């Protein structure tokens, strides 16, 4: 009840200086309220409303989120509901298998043009997110992959050819972007704003230690090619396709400001972390907040890692992290019934999160968006 009262009070005092910008107060700011502005001035009313709620809650509570089970469903959200009686506020879909979508491939096994999983989620009050494990043909000509390299199952796809409209890579990029734009446009027509996180984890671990490298093709040629690709993607979706329902999330791999595409094309800085202990998470949050003071900071992916189990949300929050949202990763084997234990974030973790009163579920989000 205390959080609910506080929320109503804050809603009353927040003043919007611009339809596409908002202020936040609380632990994330220092002395002055910070203005967070959507980079797309033509954002739809629904997108502005979602943005306003994100800003309003920033520093006070985090949106709870999950990723779909591989691609186009709300399977992980159902797990959370089964464990806790709450749905997470955010469900993130992945365009990883667009090459196998039935609207472009008669032998495909899913259909991104059928928006039912997205509209079902949205109409019950959920926030829609989309990410893109952008697969391109592998060197062997048969597989699809994001992994750069010379081996048959990897790809030599060169992102630097974003600057060469005559190249095969450029044509493939445009083809794929236009396909994804079609799905996003359908969402826009249905009034669905999208937290949009493409081209993630670009720097890989290249900034972490000597010999580190990018693990996705879009980072394989370094920051300049990557930033050019990001800006081309932004231009193609926003200016060419007139997609105004996107909140643009760029992923930091830490100490990779060379890879940052720019304030004018990024709304939120995300961080993916599977060494998700409360102390290192708090350090990273503070560092990102310092480096990107005009952006919301989100825990865009998290979960148990190979070495350590993720700290409980109460501990993460208690250490000072104020992530705008978190998104736990899916467990394919759990969802297939092959495992009794969720690999990344199970029942105990989610119960702690909702019991803490520090995260927003789908029902609460529905009220906030009214």
């Amino acid at each position, binding site marked *: 009840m205390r959080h609910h009262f506080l929320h109503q009070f804050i809603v009353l005092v927040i003043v919007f200086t611009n339809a596409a910008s908002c202020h936040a107060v609380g632990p994330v700011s220092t002395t002055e309220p910070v203005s967070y502005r959507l980079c797309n001035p033509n954002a739809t009313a629904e997108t502005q409303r979602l943005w306003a709620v994100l800003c309003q809650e920033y520093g006070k509570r985090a949106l709870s989120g999950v990723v779909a089970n591989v691609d186009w469903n709300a399977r992980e959200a159902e797990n959370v509901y089964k464990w806790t009686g709450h749905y997470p506020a955010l469900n993130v879909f992945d365009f990883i298998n667009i090459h196998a979508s039935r609207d472009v491939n008669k032998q495909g096994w899913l259909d991104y043009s059928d928006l039912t999983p997205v509209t079902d989620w949205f109409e019950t009050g959920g926030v829609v997110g989309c990410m893109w494990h952008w697969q391109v043909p592998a060197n062997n000509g048969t*597989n699809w992959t994001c992994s750069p390299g010379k*081996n*048959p199952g990897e790809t030599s796809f060169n992102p630097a050819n974003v600057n060469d409209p005559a190249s095969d890579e450029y044509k493939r990029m445009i083809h794929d972007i236009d396909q994804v734009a079609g799905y996003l446009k359908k969402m826009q027509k249905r009034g669905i704003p999208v937290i949009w996180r493409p081209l993630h984890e670009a720097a890989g671990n290249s900034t972490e230690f000597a010999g580190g490298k990018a693990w996705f093709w879009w980072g394989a040629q370094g920051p300049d090619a990557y930033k050019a690709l990001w800006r081309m993607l932004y231009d193609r979706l926003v200016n060419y396709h007139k997609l105004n329902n996107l909140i643009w999330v760029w992923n930091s791999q830490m100490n990779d400001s060379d890879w940052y595409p720019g304030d004018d094309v990024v709304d939120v800085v995300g961080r993916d972390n599977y060494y998700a202990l409360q102390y*290192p998470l708090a*350090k990273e949050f503070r560092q990102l907040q310092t480096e990107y003071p005009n952006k919301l900071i989100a825990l865009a992916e998290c979960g148990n890692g*190979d*070495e350590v189990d993720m*700290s409980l949300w109460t501990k993460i929050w208690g250490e000072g992290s104020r992530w705008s949202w978190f998104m736990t990763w899916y467990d394919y*084997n759990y969802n297939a019934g092959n495992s009794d234990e969720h*690999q990344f974030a199970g029942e105990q973790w989610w119960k702690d999160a909702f019991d803490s009163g520090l995260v927003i579920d789908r029902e609460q989000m529905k009220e906030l968006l009214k």
Partner: protein
Amino acid sequence: MKGNRIIVVVLCTLFFASLPAVERTILIGPKTIGKAWKDNIVLEPRHFASAHAGDILTVYNDNAKRTAQGAFQNPKTWQGVAPEYGYFGINGPFRMTLTEDILAIAREHGIAIGGHDYRILQVTISDAADYQEQMVWTGPAVMMKDDWSANAEIPASCLKDLRVGDGLRLHISKAKPNAAAKLMDFTWNVLSPALDGVPVGGDSYTWYIYDDAPLLKLALAGYGTNVAMRIGGTGYRLDAIGIVRQVGEVSEDYSAVQRAPREYVLRAGELFHGEKYFPADWSGNLRLTAAPFQQATENDVLLISYTLDPAAKAAGVTPQLSLRNNRTWGELTGAAEPIWYKLDGTDVVYMFDAVALDEVKTRGLILTGVGFTLTKIELISAQ
């Protein structure tokens, strides 16, 4: 005289033919292989003195998580004893065929069994004769070209009897030095990452099936003449495929068996308990994650307990240890040069400065050194 020799040969042949094939236990657990690749057990070199190329090493296990992985490693280098044994998924007994190269490693250093998220119950060696092979596909043979474009399509009917614990043996010929196989499901996706260009040579390659994940992928193809599996690769000819299954008996002679150390549950504040040897060749090290340090403060100390190694001291080695960061192996305090603690008693008390405390809370630490056996590490509040 010639006739007698023939009789002896015939009798010997009959004798060996009538001997039952025997599976010999070399290690008895349990040995828990926990998270994060931290645990392993080294099979002692003596077990391999009488082993032959072609013998099968089997690891029986339980408590395997769905994502469990196994590994057969060289304890000297911690690399897989062969590329395909660096890591692999498991869900049931897992096996390895001992080759001459692997036996050379095993006889000198032993073999480490590692991975994560399962428990070893027993390890055995059995003769190749303990396994029977049923040929399920006999061609027509497919020549795997240099450009990886060729593949053999294996119908579902050939693989219907395949189950966890079996081996699928590819009979090959004309293998070039860089020959590699790629085992795929009917959608052209590899059955597991380890099978994406696995090196092959000699006259065969056996893929042991440790879990049901690849079988589920094969089953998706349906039945009968549907293509269930595609075998591709480069630089060899695929002639035939057989399913290999164990049929031998198990020896009950445990007189030479190796026993896993008794398992121990760490008490509050204990970060390590046991006996970890840090030899004179600098190969010993221990990694601790940041998890137990999350609440640590500058009032806490690390109490590191050890016993000295008399042999190392006699050989002129100065027993010493050093604490490093878990990223670059730099000195934990951030100093340019590592700080060495000379060991001449039973304990080292380590006090954190701000840099070291931040480092262990962020990424944990690595303890390295020579000439001692680590017995315990405790995180203790000095207040």
